[in-house]
């Protein structure tokens, strides 16, 4: 209730057209934003960082509430930040608004770039920001995956021989055999599936999941010809999910 009221208040403040913003628009805006705050405009044509030379489109905003922020930046309530306004978005001193932004400069303070203003407003959406951001990474990986399967790891083969190229970034591809019990996306084959993961601890690969025999979960397998491999691969942390998220993943795949 509180969020809804807040949203309608914002509609008035920003002269939004109403509370009928298409969900996709709002979702796109949230997706493009990684720092979403409610705040009050304190100064126009100003900045909190002296390195911001062009202040023609920047304003200083006092953060009253953080609606979404990455780890490490959640505690910005009460601080002033610099916002580079989106084209066509004009504000006045004293005006309160929700600013959808992405990061720009991080020094003693921070400056952010407004990613846009919801064209139709979305007060009910404000409460969904946290949920949208929480699944954002997973949704992106699901969208990109060539095949999503539920199953358990049968085997992890020892590393293959000499790499064809000598580089400190050699991924050291390692072969994994998955007993696929259900295919949630992609070619609907059950049974054994083979994919690779990079065993390297190099900066390019250290975040990759490292499946072990017996691991049960949901596996997001990708085709990456650009990496020089024909097989399916897992390379990002989101690519191996615990089995407990199965229903959530099924829901995401069904567009719920």
């Amino acid at each position, binding site marked *: 209730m509180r969020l809804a009221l807040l949203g309608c208040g914002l509609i008035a403040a920003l002269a939004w057209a109403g509370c009928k913003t298409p969900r996709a628009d709002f979702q796109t805006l949230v997706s493009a934003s990684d720092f979403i705050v409610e705040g009050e405009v304190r100064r126009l044509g100003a900045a909190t960082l002296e390195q911001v*030379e062009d202040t023609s489109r920047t304003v200083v905003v006092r953060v009253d509430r953080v609606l979404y922020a990455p780890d490490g930046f959640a505690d910005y309530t009460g601080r002033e930040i610099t916002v580079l306004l989106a084209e066509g978005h004009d504000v006045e001193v004293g005006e309160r608004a929700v600013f959808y932004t992405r990061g720009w400069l991080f*020094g003693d303070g921070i400056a952010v770039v407004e990613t846009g203003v919801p064209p139709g407003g979305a007060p009910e959406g404000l409460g969904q920001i946290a949920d949208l951001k929480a699944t954002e990474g997973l949704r992106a990986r699901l969208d990109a995956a060539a095949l999503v399967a539920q199953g358990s790891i049968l085997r992890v083969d020892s590393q293959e021989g000499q790499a064809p*190229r000598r*580089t400190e970034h050699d*991924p050291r591809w390692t072969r994994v055999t998955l007993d696929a019990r259900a295919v949630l996306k992609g070619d609907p084959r059950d049974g054994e599936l083979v994919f690779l993961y990079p065993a390297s601890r190099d900066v390019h690969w*250290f975040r990759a999941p490292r499946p072990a025999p017996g691991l049960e979960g949901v596996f997001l397998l990708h085709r990456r010809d650009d990496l020089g491999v024909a097989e399916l691969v897992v390379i990002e942390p989101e690519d191996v999910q615990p089995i407990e998220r199965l229903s959530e993943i099924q829901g995401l795949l069904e567009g719920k």
Partner: protein
Amino acid sequence: MRSLNPSLLAVFLVAGAGPLAAQTVRVVNMVPGAQSNETNQDSEPDITVDPNDPNNVVASAFTPNPTGALGTAPIYISSDRGNTWLLNSIVPSGNGMTGDITVALGRNGVLYAGILRGGSSLLMDILRTANYTGAAAMTTLVSRNNVDQPFARMLTGLGGGERDDDLVYVGNNDLATALSATVDQSFDAATAPAPGGFAASVIELRPPFMQDAPPIRPAIHHDGTVYAAFARYQTFTATLDTVDIVVARDDDWGKSATPFSDLTDPSDGLAGRFVAQGISVAWLLPGLGQERVGERLSIAVDPTDSQTVYLAYYDSPSGTDSRVQIRRSTDGGNNWSGSLLSVASALNPTVAVTVRGKVGFAYQVLTGAGAAQRWETHLRTSDDGGATWDDTTLATTPAATPVRAFFPYLGDYMGLAAVGKDFYGVFSANNTPDPANFPNGVTYQRNVDWTANTLRNLANTGTVAVSIDPFFFHVQEIPDDQDFYVRDWTDSATDNDAGLEPSTDPIFFTTSDVWNRRTDAPAPFSANDRPQSEDPQVAVLGDNYAFARVHRKGSGSAETVTLRFLKSEFGTGSNYVDVSATPTDTLTFAAADTVQTMTAGVEWTLNATTSSHTCLAVEITTPNDPLSGPSLVGRAPGWPPAGSNTRTDLIVLNDNNIAQRNMGVHKTSGRGSSIAYHALVHNAALATRDVTLRVIPDERFVGLFKQPVTGVVGGAGRMEGDLLTLPGMRPGENRWVALAVPATSGQGGALYSVSFQELVDGLAVNGFTIAVEPTTVAGAAPEALRLYAEAFLRLGALEGDESAAREGKRALELAGRGEVSPKALVELLRDGSDRQRGLDALLKRPGFADLFGLSGAADRLSKAAEAGDPELVLPGTSDLAQRLDSALTRLDKLRGDLADVRQTVDWQAELYATHPRLCNLPGSAELVERSREFVLAFSAGKVTADDYPGLVEGLFDVYAATVGVVGESLQAELEAMRGALGSAKELQGAHRRFLLLLEAGRR
């Protein structure tokens, strides 16, 4: 919150070498305050510094986007010389980080980066942005898969055809082929659409074992010399490589059809010199501490000498150990020293060279054992070519913590740059805020507790775990308040030379802060903050006064600056001499002063036989800010001091303690014939060469006169495009460039100029400017008459001709009346009897050739005077005066030139050291040694031209032996030398003729 370690001064004094002040060291943790919560492994840093403004610094590391966004990764930027830092996420990415990343920034302010794109494997992007503080992502110029370790370096051209162009070189290991060592290069990358002018050049010609190793490192010199170092596999196993270290070189920016092929190896004649062959390099693991190992290379070229190049690399002599070392070549990479310095258990060798030739060698070394192991980061410096080294410990931090998140733990490289006299660098290390870890002090921007030695979170409510952070360091050779400079150029009060080294305008000889006046007052600066220089006057008209304005980069201390003024002939290449026997003065700076202008000049006099067309230079020194090398006395900018292997010597650009003014301004009026303005071109080198001048008219000149009309007097010359070449000039030879400008009237005040740059390897090493100021006949007449008078007075003095002297005095009397009416000018010149008698005597002088067209000029003047038309008389007067002045300079210099004493002795040493028929003569070695000692002593001011006859007299036994070997043709000149021992000037003339015969014999 910015946090200063309270127990240590951030600026810590370290004993410096030589006479300089103690250098200052700053170390700064680069993680911004807003990132106080971060625990990333910010390893493998790189750095670049804006050469136009060293306050602007950009760095990179394996730092993720602070917001977790995946589309971009950040760079570090500073606008206060590294004291504080920002993160700006503008590097395109697929996972919010980058793989390998290096950065390069030039004078145009455009930032380039070579990266492996995050979220990919070996996808190399070459990126560009003209606004690295803005919010827009960098533009991708090149994107290529299967490429490793893009390593970007660049410079912005100073002169020649590359002026202001961004020349960018990205070394990379292109694994698409076995010949994988590659350089992607662009010669004008700042604005062109993708690919930004980039093209890939394979620099490996010998098929290696499968491929080359990852690091390919470029190093660039302003004269167009570009080096690239790489490691070539002979073979490798899973843990051990056998490699050759190879250096390639290109002498023209890499622009030829076969780039990097100018340095070959004698073993096979192929491009790429082997510096080391078959050395062992451990590969990846077990590594050193928590770090992996492998090939690591760094190369840097000396800004003062493109043939001096340093190479540092990693190897594993026993197959498992770790060592870094540095070596040097002083002949363009053909021959290499042994190890100048080697350090065991070390990684990340990185080398850079300052504008004063000081080499910096940074590395990280693992010390101690077990849990007590520490990573120490050192900067070693040497200002004697690596014979001795200073050692600055930048950090000594725990090696066992934090636990590695990924490889590389600290980096496969660290960053080091030299800008001006200073070193700027970046390294990664454990970020525990413990004063004991940073012997030279440190500042943090992120929140810390210095008492508990802990990191604090953003809200300062709890601690944050230790991680790997990037640390910036700046080693400043001379503090700002002691770094004095004379501007090389001024465009306005706000746009001028700020003491950068090298300075940034290749026309560094027309608007500098050294000037001449005919009265002892500096005169006000112009509206655009330039000094108002006057041409020198001959002694009968009065003395001259040399002035300079001196700036310094900061304030805070009272200092006294010594100024020494020098002069040379107007033109290029002429050697400098002191303006007088007492050429020095001092300027006192109070603590708050940043600029001082001399209120009284250094008095100097042009003697009766010397031309008033003169170039002026000043050298300033303090005990803490000496010249970077030998004085200009006895030599010319562009040509190296004795003992140097450099091809070019950018002394005026590279040393902000030196400035020169080489600009002739001539009032003109009337109509009819052109006036020929002359400038002397002297070959200051020790070898015969083609002298090339780039002719640069300003827009105003082109608008009024179209293209400049030039000629060469005293030898051959040819004009092709905008280049005027004087072929085959022998050491010490003089020729004259003539610029013919039609007589033109005007209202005065506007200058129409043509600049001439002396180019060596495409780089402007010296130059001069001729400017005309169209005015009324009455406005131009006094100067024309003065020059006319001076020329005939010179003729009288040089030849003892009374008619010429009378003509000069007659003209001087009229000029001395102040305003010269056109009618009076015509009447004076209508009586041409003394003029003609003086000229006739000169023209009939045995051996005199009328190279400057005196006869024709005199006839034209006589006819104009008879016609009684001032508009014809005035340009005729100027033209004859200019021609006669140059003819007399030539005549005078044929007898000898004290300014060339040092060059002549240096040339003598060169000939006797290298001439196959002379180098083994009895006494030859001693001659070479004594000559070189004399040259060094001359440059140091310990001997003068007065000591020259004594040197020569002591070498006559060797000269006599030379005659015996080379031939009797030398005998006459030898006798001439013997007969000239009473006059250093005439001795120089005879000595040079003797050496010319020797050189001819060699050819």
